[in-house]
């Protein structure tokens, strides 16, 4: 501990140079943090998505929606736990620039307990929706955005027409729910039966089914079973678990693994070289000082530790700054991946990396300083 002031004054002997080294190491670790954090975070996010929740959608892109009669056929497939569906339409509130998507469901227990991936809703709100045909649930965000309150009646304009030719849909706000992506303020929840009875086109169809299976391990097999069951009809399906879908979306980043590793490798090589030469330079400049320390009675070992300690302190300090920076910008960098946060393991891994970098770069100059012969050093040889 008594060496600490000595260590500290050694570091700040040339403040400009130390600041630049700190900055360089911090930048390198910030880059490492963002890249590696993205990769680990995505892997985590994928692993967290549900494998037992299958999404059943129309097989061809932009094709006609699926008939609601599939509901019973899906429920009768062995190994199925529960099945529900969702539909919806896009409307606008007052201005064309204020889109509001109405997610239309049949209020059932499933939405309270089984599908928190979509949204969270309290039983009493769901009950209120069930009892009001043209009822709607809103999020706090959308309520604040448009000044809506429970009890209000709101008109939405849509290209989905009612049977009387009108495109105006009116909803009575009866409760609230929590969106799993807060701050989006994009959708409200309404009754499927209200939508289906009133609309003129696509009656008796739904956008997609949610099927929960008993055994998550059989997700791929069950998906194939479902798609085969509707294979020869005019409404073929495409089924996949939420995890499979997430994996597909994230594969893009997985493919970049090799590249990420190369970048991190390149950063490391540049960094190791840069710090080693900087340390060498410092030691060379400070040769007389070390000689004086030795004359005062410092042994080889304390001198060695002094140099290594300096490097360790710089590297860890800079790595902390860099990783903090990475954590700070992470929400922006990871914007397109919902639910991404900086994994702690990456921070830990980064700090271990910093210690290793410090040890590798500090040992050669430290040895040089420790082996110094006092006479030679003071003579400037």
């Amino acid at each position, binding site marked *: 501990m008594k060496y600490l002031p000595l260590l500290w004054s050694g570091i700040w002997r*040339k403040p*400009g*140079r130390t600041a*630049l*080294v700190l*900055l*360089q190491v911090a*930048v*390198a670790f*910030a*880059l490492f943090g963002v*890249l590696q954090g993205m990769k680990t975070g995505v892997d985590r996010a994928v692993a967290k998505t549900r494998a037992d929740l299958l999404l059943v959608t129309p*097989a*061809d*892109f*932009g*094709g*006609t929606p699926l008939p609601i009669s599939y509901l019973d056929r899906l429920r009768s497939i062995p190994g199925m736990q529960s099945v529900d569906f969702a539909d919806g339409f896009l409307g606008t509130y007052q201005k064309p620039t204020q889109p509001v998507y109405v997610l239309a469901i049949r209020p059932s227990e499933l939405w309270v307990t089984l599908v928190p991936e979509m949204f969270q809703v309290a039983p009493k709100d769901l009950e209120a929706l069930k009892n009001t045909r043209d009822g709607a649930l809103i999020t706090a965000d959308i309520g604040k955005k448009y000044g809506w309150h429970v009890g209000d009646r709101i008109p939405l304009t849509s290209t989905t027409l009612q049977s009387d030719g009108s495109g105006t849909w009116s909803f009575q706000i009866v409760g609230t729910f929590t969106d799993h992506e807060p701050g989006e303020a994009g959708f409200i929840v309404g009754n499927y039966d209200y939508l289906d009875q009133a609309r003129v086109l696509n009656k008796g169809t739904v956008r997609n089914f949610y099927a929960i299976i008993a055994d998550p391990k059989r997700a*791929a097999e069950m998906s194939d079973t479902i798609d085969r069951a509707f*294979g*020869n*009809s*005019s409404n*073929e399906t*495409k089924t*996949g678990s939420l995890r*499979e879908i997430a*994996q*597909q979306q994230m*594969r*893009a980043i997985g*493919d*970049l693994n090799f*590249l990420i590793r*190369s*970048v991190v490798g*390149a*950063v490391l*090589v*540049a*960094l190791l*070289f*840069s710090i*080693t*030469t*900087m340390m*060498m*330079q410092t030691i060379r*400049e400070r040769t007389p000082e070390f000689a004086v320390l030795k004359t005062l009675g410092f042994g080889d070992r304390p001198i060695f530790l002094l140099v290594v300690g300096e490097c360790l302190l710089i590297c860890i300090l800079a790595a902390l700054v860099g990783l903090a920076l990475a954590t700070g910008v992470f929400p922006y960098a990871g914007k397109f991946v919902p639910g991404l946060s900086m994994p702690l393991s990456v921070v830990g891994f980064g700090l271990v990396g910093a210690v290793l970098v410090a040890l590798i770069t500090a040992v050669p100059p430290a040895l040089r300083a420790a082996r110094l012969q006092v006479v030679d050093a003071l003579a400037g040889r």
Partner: protein
Amino acid sequence: MKLARQFWALLRMNLEAIPARLGLVCTIVIGVTCAVAVLVSMLAMGAGARQEAMGNVSPNRATLTSVDAPSPLQSSVAQDAAPLIRDLPGIRRDAQGKPIVVFQATVFVQARSKINGAQTGFPLIGMTPGFTDYQPELHITAGRMYTPGLRELIASNKCVRQYTDFGVGAHRHMRGGDWVVVGNFDLASTVCLVFADGDTILSAFGRNTYNQANVMLQSPGAFADLANALKANPSLHLKVQHEAEIFAQNMQQLNGILNFVSYFVGAIMALAATIGAANSLYAIVDGRRRELAILRAVGFNSLPIVASVVSESILLALPGALIGALVAWLLFNGLLASPLGASFHMAVTPSLALLGLGWALGIGLIGGLLPALRAARVPVTDAMRAT
């Protein structure tokens, strides 16, 4: 004149002293090498994708879509508009004297990845007769062309590599019917391409409109005639775009993401390299304080001193750029990359190497500037003090 002579003398001194400061010099070179290698290899993805997508774009080809469609996928061209479109001016005629117009309907169906068994959507493209006249560079490598009216497909070799059941003779089950792959072909594209007869696709997928009409122009100049004819006939509700424009639109999203990532990472690497270079040059300048002070004392001007240090920095950065581009080329050129569902070979092009050189110049210039200013301001009294 005198300043130039001073500059040359200083620069020669700097360069001759390089062997004595090998460590610091190598730091600059290696830092720049890494930054340029990373930037160039990341950008090589975008360049490779562009090269493969635009590989055989022809100025003679143009595409007609609905006026208000943001992309051909949202466009619809009615079947009964076909004769009107064939009569438009500027369209080349085939050997029989018929205009070369091919109507295209695109549907998305599922394919299974060979690597991990995951399902992915791929475009199944229906083309009406005349396709081979419109796209003569389509090169069948195995099997034969599909027969119009039958449920037959031809798949690009990229599909065969990426997905299951696309080899010649494979059967695919789609829309309640059995489809046979009868041929494989090569055609420049970043994604798997599958073609079938246009009207067979329409009836099998329950569609009654095409997405787009592709026309072969008499000459690139005939584009204007066609565009004017469409403007004069607003009831057709169609617009015309060059093939290159459509392809560029398709590439926009992929390119946007790739470029953003490349420049983001590249800029951070460059920042680190700049700091490293500045630090090394500071150390070099510090090591030469006495020498510089003596030079100032004997009448050397500040300007040549600044210029000589900056030049040294740039001269050290340039080999870094060349090595970096070379490393990127050795490691990544021709490597198969498949980000975001596309698949293409990365391409390290001369223009990318030049771009890397430009970045290196920037790193050298910015990294050298501050140390150079310090060098020029060394007090003359320093020369008198022994250290």
